[in-house]
């Protein structure tokens, strides 16, 4: 993998064990490095070791005797396929096409946030066949044995995946996960309401500290993402930091926004509120920007939407988050063979593209050409900048799972920012 000069040290592999501990595990906290060239880990016992991979320190998660992959060559169960995912995060016609091909029904259960998803998976009350863990949830799901290993004999379409994600750093050998989508977190705005010149800024994240956007700018109600903006704005691209001084600087910086622009934290600010002029400028997931098209009133023009991802700027050294969402099969799935076929089906180029047109986040498949997304009508020209490519992973930063002691400090910072004090 080629690294960009703006990459933080940990991505360039310029860290020793102590520095890596400080960043991923937190100095003085209960983190420890796993052996054999793996990334950081934290846990109470050998069996429940949480392995957190980084691009320079990939991890291969262990297999457990009492949680083997399913055998090859098994018949497909009769279903229904139980899908557990964010609301409206798989295109229904794609699900219906799967249903038609395999002659099974599907049922779709949603969760509101990742914590709720984990809670439901842990209760064993809900028996789901397919779950979609984001990058930072994967280590804990595997260590807690919530997922079963994948049997690649059922997944020939894994060959379609980007070379860098066939055996990704967070799950070497794709033992437990297959990539679903990729996305970035950047800045969205309505061109007919504001005209920020982000290309010219040395740190584009500072746009949120411009008082001309008072009352019309928002950020996500998401502690990892928004503290991340505070970190970027204060000059650090280490978005998984355990350093209290950096977190405190980010906290103070974010608190400035309350008086400066009367910032509001929402989760639907981009896809729902920008179209109805509730915001003109917002911290934005690339997929939300694409989805916003469907929320514009009939008398409004969706082509006014714009999106910018700071790491792509020539003028800026600021970072930006980029991430992967994955497919996985819960350990207690009732229809694991069907689940494997579903994952394979979703990795087929045509199905992945159809799904992309709905959810807005592209599939990380080498069989699709991002340069044709606009010409083939998957997304409009004004949103071409939302397309996440394989190269973006070498210039952006990935949100990783934090050790509990660090995560609670992040939560306290976030509570303070949200309460305005």
């Amino acid at each position: 993998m080629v690294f960009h000069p703006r990459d933080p040290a940990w991505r360039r592999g310029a860290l020793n064990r102590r520095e890596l501990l400080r960043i991923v595990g937190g100095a003085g906290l209960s983190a420890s490095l796993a052996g054999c060239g793996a990334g950081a880990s934290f846990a109470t016992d050998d069996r429940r070791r949480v392995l957190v991979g980084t691009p320079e320190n990939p991890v291969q998660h262990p297999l457990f005797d009492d949680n083997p992959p399913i055998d090859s060559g098994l018949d497909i169960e009769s279903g229904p396929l139980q899908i557990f995912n964010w609301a409206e995060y798989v295109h229904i016609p794609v699900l219906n096409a799967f249903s038609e091909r395999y002659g099974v029904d599907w049922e779709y259960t949603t969760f509101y946030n990742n914590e709720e998803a984990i809670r439901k998976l842990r209760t064993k009350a809900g028996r789901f066949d397919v779950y979609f863990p984001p990058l930072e949830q994967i280590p804990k799901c595997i260590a807690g044995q919530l997922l079963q290993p994948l049997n690649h004999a059922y997944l020939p379409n894994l060959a379609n995946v980007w070379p860098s994600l066939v055996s990704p750093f967070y799950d070497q050998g794709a033992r437990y996960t297959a990539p679903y989508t990729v996305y970035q977190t950047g800045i969205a705005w309505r061109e007919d309401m504001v005209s920020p010149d982000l290309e010219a800024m040395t740190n584009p994240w500072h746009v949120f500290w411009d008082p001309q956007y008072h009352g019309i700018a928002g950020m996500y109600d998401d502690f990892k993402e928004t503290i991340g903006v505070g970190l970027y704005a204060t000059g650090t691209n280490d978005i998984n930091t355990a350093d209290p001084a950096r977190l405190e600087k980010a906290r103070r910086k974010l608190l400035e926004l309350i008086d400066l622009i009367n910032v509001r934290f929402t989760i639907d600010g981009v896809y729902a509120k920008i179209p109805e002029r509730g915001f003109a400028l917002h911290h934005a997931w690339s997929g939300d920007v694409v989805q916003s098209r469907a929320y514009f009133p009939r008398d409004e023009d969706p082509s006014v939407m714009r999106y910018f991802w700071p790491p792509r700027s020539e003028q800026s050294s600021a970072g930006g988050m980029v991430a992967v969402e994955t497919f996985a099969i819960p350990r207690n799935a009732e229809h694991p063979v069907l689940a494997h076929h579903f994952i394979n089906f979703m990795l087929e180029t045509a199905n992945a593209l159809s799904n992309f047109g709905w959810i807005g986040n592209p599939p990380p498949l080498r069989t699709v050409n991002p340069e044709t997304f606009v010409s083939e009508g998957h997304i409009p020209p004004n949103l071409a900048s939302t397309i996440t490519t394989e190269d973006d992973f070498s210039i952006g930063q990935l949100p990783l799972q934090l050790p509990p002691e660090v995560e609670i400090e992040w939560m306290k910072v976030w509570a303070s920012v949200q309460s305005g004090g």
Partner: protein
Amino acid sequence: MLLFFVTPFYALLSVAMGRLDPVFSSAEPVWNPIRWNPAIFPEVLGELFGGRLTAIFIRTFVYVGTASMLCLLIGYPVAYYLARHAGRWRGLLLGLIVAPFWINYLMRMMAWQNLLAVDGYVHRFLVFVNVLDAPRAWLVGHHETVILGLVYGYVPFLILPLYAALDQIDSSVLEAARDLGAGPVRTFLHVTLPLSKQGVLAGVVIIMLPLFGDYYTPNLLSGSPRTRMIGNEIDLFINSGVGGATGAALTVVLMALIAMLMAYYLFTVMGAARESQQ
């Protein structure tokens, strides 16, 4: 009592003084009280009194106090009218007061979101009748919007017990006051108001309990850090997984404060009961 209070409260304490799961980063209850670790409480109290949550804690009290006062100012005349002057319209008017309960609270607040939006009907009307020269951004972090939202949401809960208390006042007592030369204002101040004190207290306590825990009204009508209440912080911590113990401890502290209000109410009610027996 065991099912509806003791068991959930014990579970809350077990989470607040429990442990953090090192794998899932979630608060796990410890059911054996011998193993409880109360360290979270000094930490939470430190945050509330002089720490990062002080501002939000004070704001919550100001919002709840102001909203309760406004509810009382609006609710008392309504309840008084219903009890004394509504006559044959009483049933209909009571029905109209209860009518909003037929619609889910969240749905009503979302309706206000649309009505108060910059391009909403309220703005259009006020601009049309020249009360406003241009639409105002009411939903972007204004204290008054959130407080009025709370008043709108909870005032019926105050009217009903107050109406019941006013309706129970023996009309012969009021007639006796007038026979002894008291005018309407004096009769109200020296007879009706003291006799309705328990109803006022009951109504205020009934609305204060949910007001302290409210978090969706500021979320829906503002979304700004300027207007967050302590309920928002509890919601944030509990739903975060890793902050579950902090959320549970905040809830316990809030319960303790509310319990003081309840104790005052019970003390007053018992005192009034003793007086009536003498």
